[in-house]
């Protein structure tokens, strides 16, 4: 549909390009501030390497500068503070405006009947013959949902950061990166073709790299950032190949055209399956699925609000978004869809097992994120695109809350340690916490809401979304196109039942490890140490405020998409709101996958729901009964674990395995075979220097003839003459 005749053309939607532009402006201002500050005023803290912050956390960076530059710093402090003040206004400010614009666009969209997405073409980006890629943004139900999540939760996390990062010397730089991230994330979800999405896709990876390595002076942080970027690039390889295949077979990369032309590809054929699998490789990288999940736990080296925004709520869900965006392709590639669901399910369980044994509070949440992302992939994999997106949204609420809550806890721990000059201990290790409920009641209550939500206890938001995914996996096992396909020799229906069982199992584990985290952090006796305890306190309102908002959302988020079976029983609200909203985008694809007879009867559905609730509650009860926070000792006093515990604590040794089988051999081969072997040895020594040596040898041979003895020359002359004579004689 032409841009100007689209029903959204005269509404706030025509300013859609302002959505990414606003955070970009924020980035430019904050970035300029940051560069100016460090170039003009010198490094804020050149002699300190944040070495005392064992996990790169800097909430306590408001200690006195080192004596060496105290005078220098004292002189610059007012300017620094003014810069910080500007950054605090600009950074969150652009987010508030962007969220307002997103809301206005949302209401505009609600007011019109949309049959096709609103595409806002800015300029022609890559015009090369048959390949025409525009810099264009696309508004439809799906991108709107994502925009609301990104700007909304992004705004809250920006506000939280004002408190959390207030004393960090790199304050403007932090907001610059965070704004840049939002810019790329919005580009990712708003792109009207794969290439624009890819720009955002790599851009968020870049910001993630920069933010994980925010405290770059510590090698572990810089390593983690690099690892994230490189693993993501493995995924990007898949994304790129998928784009090449799409162009080669459909001649375009625009979403609308591809959706219309997808039928030209033979359904279930090798081409569309390969495209989807390559796309999924990209998703596995970005969304930390097996085998590319290894970067996400390390990414916790970044500041905690970053973990909340990028590594929980938005960026890591980009893979789910992409599958939903490509639903027209996935819906005709059942094998690829089954793969997505199976990988998601295995990842969900695998990460949950690791989550059981982590001591670092952020690592628990990191593995929980990997696990929940696996859930989302089950949803989009079984063709329940709405369910996947629904879980994406609710997960954004409760996981952001959990991360920010853990941020508050770490902040409190750091302040306590700092007040007592107690820098040796790990502020993120749960063995050093315990009993924090008494000191941080609000955080405690809010985090319990989130825990119940993620565990899937009704009526919290996670219950509805998780249940919808599991229900869909169960339902698709009969009559759908997936059930009729085969994956690795297994019939699709078997695969789907396996997926369902794995999903249930990880639901149980989720409930256990989350309860464990809450018990060890907030309940039982306090293990922080008597000296530190009096300094533990709730964080300031700028940090607690966003937590409250997220708490409310985690509580009521389920109302976005109530299942009919519940609204039929008790009229608590409209059913399937999100489903109706996304219907123009994924409706056709969902229907195609669902095929015939996949609607479960109400009674089956009720049984399934009951089952899921029972499992969630069982998990909580098991954890409560088996775990004893009372017997836990602080980190420095605990013994190393063994057996399966040790394997889980070391994350199944996956990192070590990758290192030994992929990283080290590649390096060794490059170094000793390719460089010193082929380059220096074969080409330079043998061929280049060899040909030089050959030339020199031939020259030496010739030189030998020039003995300098006239007698020899005369002999040769005569012999030559005789030979010539003989030749002439022969010829005549």
């Amino acid at each position, binding site marked *: 549909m032409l841009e100007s005749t689209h029903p959204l053309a005269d509404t706030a939607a025509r300013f859609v390009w302002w959505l990414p532009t606003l955070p970009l402006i924020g980035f430019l201002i904050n970035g300029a501030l940051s560069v100016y500050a460090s170039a003009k005023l010198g490094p804020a803290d050149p002699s300190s390497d944040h070495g005392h912050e064992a996990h790169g956390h800097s909430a306590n960076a408001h200690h006195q500068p080192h004596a060496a530059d105290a005078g220098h710093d004292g002189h610059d402090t007012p300017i620094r503070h003014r810069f910080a003040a500007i950054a605090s206004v600009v950074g969150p400010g652009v987010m508030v405006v962007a969220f307002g614009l997103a809301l206005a666009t949302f209401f505009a969209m609600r007011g019109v009947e949309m049959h096709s997405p609103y595409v806002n073409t800015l300029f022609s980006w890559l015009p*090369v013959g*048959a390949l025409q890629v525009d*810099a264009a943004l696309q508004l439809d139900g799906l991108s709107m949902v994502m925009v609301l999540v990104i700007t909304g939760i992004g705004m809250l996390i920006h506000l939280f950061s004002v408190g959390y990062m207030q004393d960090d010397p790199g304050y403007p730089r932090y907001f610059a990166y965070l704004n840049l991230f939002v810019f790329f994330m919005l580009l990712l979800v708003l792109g009207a073709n794969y290439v624009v999405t890819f720009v955002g896709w790599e851009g968020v990876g870049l910001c993630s790299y920069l933010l994980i390595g925010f405290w770059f002076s510590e090698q572990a942080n*810089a390593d983690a950032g690099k690892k994230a970027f490189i693993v993501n690039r493995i995924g990007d390889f898949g994304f790129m190949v998928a784009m090449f295949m799409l162009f080669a077979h459909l001649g375009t990369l625009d979403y609308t055209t591809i959706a219309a032309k997808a039928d030209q590809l033979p359904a279930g054929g090798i081409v569309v399956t390969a495209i989807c699998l390559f796309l999924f490789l990209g998703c596995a990288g970005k969304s930390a699925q097996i085998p590319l999940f290894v970067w996400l736990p390390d990414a916790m080296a970044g500041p905690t609000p970053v973990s909340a925004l990028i590594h929980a709520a938005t960026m890591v869900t980009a893979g789910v978004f992409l599958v939903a965006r490509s639903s027209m392709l996935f819906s005709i590639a059942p094998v690829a869809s089954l793969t997505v669901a199976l990988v998601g399910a295995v990842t969900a369980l695998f990460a949950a097992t690791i989550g059981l044994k982590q001591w670092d509070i952020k690592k628990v949440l990191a593995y929980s994120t990997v696990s929940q992302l696996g859930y989302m992939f089950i949803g989009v994999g079984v063709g329940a695109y709405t369910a996947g997106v629904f879980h994406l949204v609710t997960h954004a609420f409760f996981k952001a809350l959990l991360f920010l809550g853990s941020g508050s806890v770490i902040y409190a721990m750091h302040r306590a340690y700092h007040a007592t000059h107690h820098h040796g201990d790990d502020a993120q290790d749960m063995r050093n916490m315990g009993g924090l409920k008494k000191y941080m009641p609000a955080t405690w209550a809010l985090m319990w809401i989130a825990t119940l939500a993620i565990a899937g206890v009704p009526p919290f938001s996670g219950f509805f979304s998780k249940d919808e995914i599991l229900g869909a996996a169960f339902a698709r096992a009969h009559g759908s196109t997936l059930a009729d396909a085969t994956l690795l020799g297994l019939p699709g229906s078997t695969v789907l039942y396996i997926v369902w069982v794995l999903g249930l199992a990880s639901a149980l584990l989720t409930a256990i490890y989350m309860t464990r985290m809450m018990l060890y952090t907030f309940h039982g006796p306090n293990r922080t140490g008597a000296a530190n305890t009096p300094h533990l306190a709730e964080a300031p309102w700028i940090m607690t405020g966003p937590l409250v908002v997220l708490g409310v959302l985690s509580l009521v988020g389920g109302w976005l998409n109530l299942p009919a079976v519940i609204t039929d029983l008790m009229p608590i609200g409209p059913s399937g709101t999100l489903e109706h909203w996304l219907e123009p985008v994924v409706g056709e694809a969902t229907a195609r996958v669902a095929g015939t007879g996949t609607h479960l009867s109400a009674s089956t559905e009720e049984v399934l729901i009951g089952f899921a609730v029972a499992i969630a509650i069982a998990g909580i009860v098991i954890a409560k009964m088996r775990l004893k926070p009372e017997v836990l000792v602080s980190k420095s006093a605990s013994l190393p674990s063994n057996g399966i515990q040790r394997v889980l604590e070391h994350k199944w040794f996956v990192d070590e395995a990758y290192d030994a089988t992929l990283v080290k051999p590649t390096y060794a081969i490059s170094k000793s075979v390719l460089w010193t072997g082929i*380059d220096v040895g074969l080409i330079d020594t043998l061929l280049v220097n060899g040909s030089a040596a050959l030339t020199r040898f031939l020259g030496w041979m010739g030189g030998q003839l020039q003995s300098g003895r006239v007698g020899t020359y005369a002999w040769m002359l005569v012999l030559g003459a005789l030979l010539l004579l003989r030749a002439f004689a022969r010829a005549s």
Partner: protein
Amino acid sequence: MHGMLSSMNYNGWILTTLLLLPVLGAVMLSVQAAGSGQADDATKMSSARRTALLFFTAEAVISLGLWWSIDYGTADWQATVTVPWIPQWGIFYRIGVDGIAVLLILLTTLLMPLTVLGSWTSIRQKPHAFYALLLVLTTGMLGVFMALDLALFYVFWELMLIPMYLIIGIWGGQRRLYASLKFFLFTMLGSLLMLVAILYIGLKTVDPLGRPVFAYDWILQSASYPGTASLWLFGAFFVAFAVKVPMWPFHTWLPDAHVEAPTAGSVVLASIMLKMGTFGFIRFALPMFPDAVNHPVVRSSVIVLAVIGIVYGALVSMVQPDFKKLVAYSSVSHLGFVMLGIFALTTQSLQGALMVNINHGISTGALFLLIGMLYERRHSRMIADFGGIAKVMPVFAVLLTIVALSSIGVPGTNGFVGEFLVLIGAFTTEPVAAVIATTVVVFAAVYMLWALQRIIYNPLSKPENAALKDLNWREIGLLLPLIAAIFWLGLYPAPILNRTHAVATRIIERVHGMSDATSAGVVRP
């Protein structure tokens, strides 16, 4: 703009002026050098660099008009000049440009002033000679892009070689003699084969008076070679250009030459001279020998070599302890992309190859300038000698990060546009090669980010680095145009793409069309 330029008859004089101005500058510098015999080194240095900068800036300014004065809708030659040189042998001073050549000419003229600024304080020995050679080199390089006569082309081709040999050999590092000799021999080897081929072609194509013909257009129209002659001729040109590109396995002169050359030498070598090889393929090897290019064995061999270069360059970059060598090997990888793009024979990949050419000039040039700045401060290029210098050199760190990201093709920067177009185009004709080449997005991230981390991130543990001074305004100023170009070409490459489209289409059509017409025994895959 166009009207104003044509009222000045801009196209009539611009090319010749661009060729003569640097020679004039070189003469001026020689006169200056003779006149300043007694002056101290500092005076000599400042007078030499000022004169050089003046000439290079003038050159850059007058060349800008080419952006508007050329009609990019057509693939015909423009701004042509024809003057007899040795007419008895059919050799003419015949120059002209098309959309591709103009961009490379502009890249050259705009980059050269920056190399002078980059050498501002580092060239203290015989400064007049250095800048004079740089100016002569410029004439040689521009001539290669302009020549429409094969004999003239060869003259310019060789003209580039000598100044560069001297620049490396006199102002280079520790092993400069080894490096300069290697550079000279490698390049000479290929050039001589090309000379033989050019002579064969010239003598084979005769005009009505029986004189040899070296005019490019004439040769294109009339040439057809018997039997396997086309393959042999292509082979001769191939070796000459492949050494220059450099394609694997002809690349080993490059790391040595790059590492030993002074900053300006490395920049010119990477940014412009390496483009001669790929330009040669596009301008000469492809249109003149379509049969050979379409020959399945030839084509697949070239593509295999290109892909090996792409992957190999990236892997070997990864293990380099010397940052300059790392960048040198990454050039092997980038230029492999160009070759893949050219020989995949699609409009997208060919235009992508042209983009990679320009991008590589910008990004690698900027990288070498940055390394030079670091080297001036610390007298080391070893990655292990650095670490954490983002703390003391924040501006340097920001700029290095941007340039490194552009070099590994992060979207939004120029690097992505070129690589993406090459790969997406190559995938339609050579899917396997394209997929293998795509894996390099991973390796590129590994080598570049790892080096970046070890240089600007990590703890600032070495005391020598704690006192490093951040970039000064001259250095920032000379890098800013390159940074601007990185984003401009990354975000809005359409002006470049539109300017090369007509030529690229014509070349592709010619290569495909010829083989269809004379498809006896030649099968197009």
